[in-house]
Structures are given as C-alpha cells and as structure tokens.
C-alpha cells in the first residue's frame, strides 16, 4: 500500500488530541521506551532537539512512554507507536490507508440545521461548531467515501473524533443514513470506522433519536443483503456503541481501543471499585464475545478485503 502523501497527514496536535478526561484511555505503566534499546548516545541525539524548539511536527510525543518519536517513522507505521498504541487518525488518512492504492472518492454528507435547540453552556454551541470546523476543516463528525477494498467496491464511513469528540448529532446521523443509502444504491457493502464519546448533548433528544434513525438505515442494508462491517476504533462509547456500532454483521476492533457503553469514570463512581485492567479494551470485548477479531491497523485492508469478498460471493450466489 502506498504511503500516504504528506499533505494528508494529520497535524499532531489533532492526532494526539487528548480525549476529555471522562474517556481518556487508561495510561499504561511507564516503561523504558523503545529508544532505551539503543545506545544512550542515540537517545540523547534524539532527545536533544526536542528540548529546544523542534521543527514543527517533526517529533511526536509518545502518549505512553513520553518518548519523542520521529514523525516520518510514525507515518511509516500508520500512526502506530513503537509500543503498539494505535493513535487516533482523521478520516482522510483512514481513507488513504483503507482503500486499494489509497484511491477513493469522497461523497457529500447532508447538511442539517445547526444548533436546533439554541444551546448555550459555557460557550454557545454555534461557537463550538464554528471552532471545530475551523480546526478540522470538516463540517461535522462523519466523512464518507467510496472506492475498493481488496478489489470489492465499498462505501466507507469514518467518524472523526477530532470533531467534537466524534459526537453523534443530527449531522452524523444523517451522514450514516446517507452512507447506507449510497451503499444500497451501489449494491456495495458499508464499512464504518467508529470513534465517538457518545451523543452530542447540545442537540438534546434530537441526538438520542439518531440511535433509532441509524438503526433503521442498517435495516435497509439488511434487506438488500449488503454486508455492514463495523471497525471499532479508540474510543467508541455511549449512544454510538449502543446503536450502530454493535449492529454490524461483523465487528473488528483496532488493538487497545476503548469500547463500552458507560465511561469508566461513571462506572467507578457507581460501583466505587477500581476497574479490572484492560476493562473495556478491544481485547476484553474479544474475550467477552462482542467483537470478532482485533486487527492491527496495517492488517485491516487485507482482512476487510477478504471478508467483503467472501460475503459478496455468497450474496451473488443468492441473487443468481
């Protein structure tokens, strides 16, 4: 697979944007760091420029060990750190990684009424939307494209955690419905990469309704016998998990992703117990029977391609 062009690489500030405290991935224990394997001199060489003002974006701080990682290395590794953390990536990069030869065509997502409730907390919702749009260059949290995976024509929807925590509001809901419609129209499977803290509170019960509306759209895929594959990425929680993220024909997950209904803080406050290690991580869900496979990012295109091809062969034999 071709390395993605530079201009599609995310700004590190976005790629490593920490989640709100409620859904921050659990910190792993401190480790020597992968650089410790090298001679101390190398380590110093690497560490020094970071302590001075480094050239912008050239060094990325490892969220686990705190070591500095050379950005081209990280890009080469598809934003998976040496310790195996799958960093959050934005839709354009996901499309590049997922589609054959990085070739795809973006599809428009429907526009919706901004701020239907005239919601104001510390800041007006319209202001939050405006700044999210300015920072991300996207209009909302769903990006839609079509192309091929493993030679199979497919529609791919990517939820963008960088846009207000990927939250599910009317725009994301309509994006999902549009994706399902596009898939039905093209007789193509739908693959979604989920990432969200949950519902968009600023849209009140209108956001809650998206749980039902997206579920309806999935029924249209079922009626057309089109595969609906969910790839759970870090983090996927709340109303998103409790609707379309758990209704796939097949559930894949990236390693180490936080996946759950209630956030760990809420659970800890409710039961007043410390949570078991690895709780609500991809591997835990695999063990509990909620996902089919945990797949490293670099293996996803091949695994997806294989699954889609098999399912579509079965489908053709029914149609014939």
């Amino acid at each position: 697979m071709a390395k993605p062009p530079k201009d599609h690489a995310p700004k590190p500030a976005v790629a490593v944007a920490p989640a709100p405290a409620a859904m921050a991935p659990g910190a792993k224990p401190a480790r020597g760091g992968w650089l410790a394997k090298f001679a101390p001199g190398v380590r110093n060489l690497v560490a020094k420029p970071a302590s001075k003002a480094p050239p912008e974006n050239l060094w990325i701080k490892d969220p686990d060990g705190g070591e500095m990682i050379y950005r081209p290395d990280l890009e080469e590794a598809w934003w998976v750190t040496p310790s195996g953390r799958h960093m959050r990536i934005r839709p354009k990069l996901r499309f590049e990684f997922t589609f054959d030869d990085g070739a795809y065509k973006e599809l428009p997502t429907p526009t919706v009424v901004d701020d239907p409730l005239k919601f104001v907390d510390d800041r007006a919702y319209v202001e939050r939307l405006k700044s999210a749009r300015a920072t991300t260059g996207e209009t909302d949290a769903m990006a839609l494209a079509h192309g091929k995976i493993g030679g199979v024509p497919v529609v791919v929807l990517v939820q963008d955690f960088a846009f207000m925590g990927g939250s599910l509001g009317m725009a994301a809901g309509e994006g999902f419905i549009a994706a399902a419609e596009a898939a039905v129209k093209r007789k193509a499977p739908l693959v979604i990469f989920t990432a969200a803290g949950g519902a968009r509170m600023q849209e009140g019960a209108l956001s809650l309704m998206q749980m039902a509306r997206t579920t309806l759209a999935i029924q249209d895929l079922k009626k057309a016998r089109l595969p609906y594959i969910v790839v759970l990425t870090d983090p996927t929680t709340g109303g998103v998990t409790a609707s379309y993220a758990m209704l796939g024909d097949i559930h894949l997950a990236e390693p180490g992703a936080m996946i759950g209904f209630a956030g760990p803080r809420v659970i800890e406050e409710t039961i007043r117990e410390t949570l078991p290690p690895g709780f609500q991580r991809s591997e835990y869900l695999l063990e509990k029977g909620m996902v089919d496979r945990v797949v490293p990012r670099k293996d996803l295109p091949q695994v997806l391609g294989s699954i889609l091809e098999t399912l579509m062969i079965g489908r053709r034999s029914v149609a014939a």
Partner: protein
Amino acid sequence: MTAAPRHYLDFERPIAELEAKIDELSKLSEAAGAGGMTGEMDAMRLRAGQLRREAYSNLDAWQKTQVARHPQRPHFVNYLDGLIDEFVELRGDRKFADDQSIVGGLGRFRGNAVVVMGHEKGADTASRVRHNFGMARPEGYRKAVRLMDMAEQFNLPVLTFVDTPGAYPGVGAEERGQSEAIARSTERGLTLGVPSIATVTGEGGSGGAIALAAANRVLILEHSIYSVISPEGCASILWRDGARAKDAAEAMKITAEDLIGLKIVDRIVLEPPGGAHSDPQGAIEAVGDAIEDELRKLSNLSPEQLRSQRADRFYAIGRAGLA
C-alpha cells in the same frame, strides 16, 4: 399509594406550609370539638389548591424533572394494576438471568390482548433494590427483545412504559454487552410488524429509554422528561459542575412541550392538577384513554404499513420544522 404521607418538592414549600397549618388547625378544632374554624379552613384549602394549580401550570424544566422523579408518581406496576387485566408476568432473557428493572408479560388492555412491558423503579427500599431503581442491565433489554419476538409471532400489539434514569453502568453490565443489548432492543422495536405504543410516564433517560421507545407512537405524560443524558450528567460534563443541572435541564429541552415541537413525541397526556402523584388513578386512566385511542388508529394497518409508518416517523425527526 395514598397511605404514605405526602412528599413535597422544593418548589412546593409554600403549599406545604399552608397544608401543615390546615392540619394543625383541623386538629385543634377537633380537640375543641367545635366547628368554628370550618370556614377559615375551607378558605385555606381552596388557597392551597389554587397555589398547587398555579405552581403546576408553570413548571420549569428542572421542576418537571423533580416531578417526573417524584417518589409517589405512579410507576409501571401501578399502570399494570390500573390498566392491564389478567396480567401474566413472563420472566428471564433465556440467556443469563431475569432483570426486574424491566417487567413484562401478557395481558388484556381494555379488551385487547397485548404484550406489555416497562421500566419499574420500585416504591420502597426493598423494591427499589429489587428493580435496581429502574436501571436495566443487558438481561432486561434481552427480555424485552424476547417479548417483542413473541408479540410478533402471535400478532399482539406491544405497549411499553418508559421510566428509567438510564441503563445501568456497571462492570457486569459492560461485560455482558450492555451496548449490544440496548441496540438490539431498539432494533427489535423498529422492526415489529405489530402496533407499538410507548408512553414516557416518568424519566426517559438516554439509550436505556429509547430501547423501549422505538414505537409507532410515543406518548408522554405532561410533566415527564425525555433526554439524551440526565441534567446532572450533562452539567457535570459541560459545566464540570453537577449543581448546574437546572441550567442543563433548560438547555437540553427535555419537557413534553419541547419534545412535541421537535416531533420526538406524538402526544402529550395531561396530568391531573398538582401532577400525577396528586391523583394517581386519574393519571393512569388518562394514559389508558390515550393509548386506547392511538391503538385504535393503528389497528387497521398491515405489518408492512406499521414498519414503514415507524420508519417514516423516525426518519422525519429533525428534517423539517427546525429553525
């Protein structure tokens, strides 16, 4: 239900004080064995009733939240008693356990054979614990799916009653697939080929509520609330201060009046003056009348018409009529 002493909410303090005075006077007057105070007491009772009507005709979103959670508000078991004859409770999800946060079974509603289910919060310490305060675990939603399957199989309408703070956030619930259970329950509701009517009788809290509210018609009691997250939860996330719940309640537009404007609910059932807890029987009958009326309207639709009516209803939300 009426045997317990009246529970007053904060905004009812003036009414509480007045009614305390009336009680005191009536005791004094009894002790004196004279009817001299009757006129005054009648006037005070009239005034208390007036104060209550005024307060309840003008509740804000946070006050409605308190009314919706009122401990003496009729709960699902009361609706069962009042509206369902020959109720036969059916228990268990056939997979792991029976979750009493959601109670369900078969019965007759005003002559119609129905499947009925609802969140039950419980009314005293023991029953609240047994019903887990109306916060369902995966088994509750899986029981709901099982009962909906049965309704479809035997061509019975489904009546659901929604009254939950939300799905239970716990280790076991997560372990056993809380998200999947909620998603499947919502999905089953949407795909039913029989008429379905959901009534939000108290708190419609988040995903735990919509799992039982993906229906042809969604009714709501006048002072009930229906929201994506509790006002406290919203406040603690957005303001980082749970005490701002009142502001969150206003901002999220959670009242029946707000929701009918957004077409999230189809019909408001008016409560007796002073709220459903002032006259539980009146409230229960009013809910029954509304359900009967809606059920009649759905009775001639084919399974396919019922499914597409439901789909159209949910797809339409947010697509028109928003400023």
